């Protein structure tokens, strides 16, 4: 047992660091909120990594994975967080990709995986439905077989960044007589198919990162069914466990704490830097301690995975603690900026004046919006309550 990097690992870290320094697009350095970003901004780094062969490290090497050890993947995350890179979105890389290479057929793999690896194809996720939330199994969207097509009808919600998506993966009910979690299928849909309509949802931070997606008589070829008909729930659960394992966001939160320290060094309290205020510094320390614990917990989980165990219910801990830390971090950042947390920087116009350029210091600009936005993290991806139910059942055995 030890925490030291081997000489090989140190060399790898240097290689990664140099690669990022040389290749990461300068105009995306230390980028702020996602909602400011264009489609190409999201994909720029992904495409560079695709060419390098580093866009899907966790995948099997035959599909483009790097074959890195957990330690190498840890180093990779750390270095990207250190440089605040805009990482590839998870919908292709961490969600549908693993489902396709695990459960898809040869044609599906050949057709869909390369676009995910290269970053040319943007995927979105059609799981949630209005009125269903974390209760995925109650979904109502139907796919009815019609010759060599499915006709899909229904409404999905919380489809993140679907406004940019080329393809979507949808859970649809293919057997209306089956119970709750049975009779569901996992179907890939070209978002340009007639009948697919994406409407943005305005969130409480003022941004538009999620959508409602209507599917009206959408005709999808049967070859877009992944795995077996009516077995979609199995793939959905597999995907959710995969999704959770990346959700801890340790390296990003580390970088967030660094930024928080920089902000608190600039803000003042009683004539001294805020970071010198014991009360405030203590909250930062507590956050660092909880994050240090989570980092080791994640590394232990990765080590377990390497030892042959797949991502198990332990990943629910990563989801719960990871999102709690992200939320506390953004809350503390809002607290740090003080009075200048109040100005709203969204697009609402105002005859009398501004909201056109920042009020107060730059770092205060998005503090409130980010805090508001991050409330979602304990709700999505299976709410933290659902995660506790999973641990209750799978680990405590109750």
């Amino acid at each position: 047992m030890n925490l030291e990097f081997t000489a090989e690992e140190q060399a790898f870290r240097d290689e990664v660091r140099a690669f990022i320094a040389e290749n990461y697009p300068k105009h995306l350095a230390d980028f702020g909120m996602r909602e400011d970003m264009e489609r190409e901004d999201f994909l720029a780094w992904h495409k560079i990594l695709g060419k390098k062969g580093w866009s899907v490290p966790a995948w099997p090497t035959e599909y483009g994975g790097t074959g890195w050890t957990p330690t190498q993947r840890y180093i990779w995350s750390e270095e990207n967080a250190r440089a605040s890179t805009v990482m590839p979105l998870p919908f292709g890389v961490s969600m549908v990709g693993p489902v396709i290479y695990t459960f898809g057929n040869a044609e599906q793999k050949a057709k869909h995986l390369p676009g995910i690896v290269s970053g040319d194809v943007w995927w979105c996720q059609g799981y949630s439905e209005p009125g269903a939330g974390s209760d995925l199994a109650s979904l109502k969207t139907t796919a009815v077989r019609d010759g060599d097509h499915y006709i899909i009808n229904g409404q999905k919600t919380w489809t993140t960044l679907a406004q940019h998506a080329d393809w979507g993966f949808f859970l649809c009910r293919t057997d209306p007589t089956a119970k709750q979690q049975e009779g569901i299928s996992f179907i890939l849909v070209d978002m340009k198919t007639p009948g697919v309509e994406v409407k943005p949802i305005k969130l409480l931070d003022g941004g538009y990162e999620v959508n409602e997606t209507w599917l009206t008589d959408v005709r999808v070829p049967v070859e877009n069914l992944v795995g077996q008909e009516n077995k979609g729930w199995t793939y959905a659960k597999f995907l959710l466990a995969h999704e959770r394992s990346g959700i801890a966001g340790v390296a990003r939160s580390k970088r967030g704490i660094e930024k928080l320290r920089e902000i608190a060094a600039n803000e003042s309290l009683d004539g001294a830097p805020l970071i010198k205020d014991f009360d405030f510094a203590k909250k930062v320390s507590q956050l660092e301690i909880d994050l240090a614990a989570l980092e080791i917990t994640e590394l232990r989980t990765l080590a377990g995975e390497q030892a042959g165990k797949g991502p198990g219910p332990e990943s629910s801990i990563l989801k719960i603690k990871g999102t709690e830390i992200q939320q506390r971090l953004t809350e503390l950042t809002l607290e740090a900026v003080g009075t200048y947390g109040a100005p709203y920087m969204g697009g609402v116009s105002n005859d009398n004046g501004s909201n056109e350029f920042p009020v107060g210091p730059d770092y205060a600009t998005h503090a409130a919006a980010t805090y508001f936005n991050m409330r979602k993290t304990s709700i999505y991806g299976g709410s933290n309550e659902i995660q506790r139910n999973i641990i209750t059942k799978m680990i405590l055995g109750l």
Partner: protein
Amino acid sequence: MDFNFTEEQDMVRAGLSRLVREQYDWETRRKAIASSAGWRPEVWAQLAELGILGMPFSEADGGFGGGAVDAMVIMQEFGKGLVVEPFIPTVVCAGGFLKHGGTAAQKEEHIGGIVAGSAVFAFAYAEPRGRFDYADLETTAAKDGAGYVLNGHKAVVIGAPWASHLIVTARTGGARRDRDGVSVFVVAKDAAGITTRDYVTVDGRRASEVYFENVALPADALIGEEGAGLALIELVTDEAIAALCAEACGAMKVAHAMTVEYSRQRKQFGVPIGSFQVLQHRMVDMYTAYEQALSLTYLATLRLGSDERARKQAVSAAKVGVGQAARLIGQEAVQIHGGNGVTDEYAIGHFFKRLTIFDSEFGNVDHHLKRHVSLG
């Protein structure tokens, strides 16, 4: 000891409750805060008509002889509807400075306008680097003949876009952060040398950055004694905090009720989510936090007239307790609303945002816990 409201207070509550319900419904509010004005001057006029704006002034000053308890009742009702109109800056803050520090002439000049709704005030005290210290001032008022010349930059002045007048704190002597040397002035917003930059706040109000460049103030712009303004500021902001806590209590009560109702309607796994014990107990904890916050708001309000130490203790206790409850209730309400809780469409997110910004007004939880310790 007496925990009853007067008949008049009950009537004011009922009247405002009706006004908010009937004329300040959610859609109306949404349009108003998105409009170029950002508030509803016609509601302000109506409040003047109903006597609400004159409630906490003595009859001698042209008011209706009410006090802090009346302001509490009023702000609770405003909190329930997230009313953005500037009752605290105008009536509680400016009114407070005039009542406690104003000369007869100053009262004569300004209180009538406040009561009638024609004079709207904003309180310009915060500065870019001052955080919650009222004495940490870079704004200066230099003696110039009988009057003063004002220079400086005030940050996030709530309600300033709507204001006809400003109450401004400035240093007339001493070094930055000295207790001595702080003075308070009243100034018309259209005075030469004042520029503002207006904007929307995340909780749907309006505020300005206010810049003073060689603004000439007459001698009678000074409220209270020159250089001895800090004690007055502390008194008035304590009154403002009590009113602000009352507003937060109103908002928390509605946020809690909305959440309970949502949990009754919303189904998951085939049953209302309100049937899950985990959510039930969390809603109980929200309820308990609200009741405790309300108690602290009563305590602060009823101690505003006590000796300085008792007043500060009670006010800081309230700002701490209400701040903690506001955080808990706001966050839990959003969480229990699930995905809908983070949308702009549902009202609950707006209550959450107002309850968030509440903490940073007039000193946050940490600040007031420190003040409480220092009084220990």
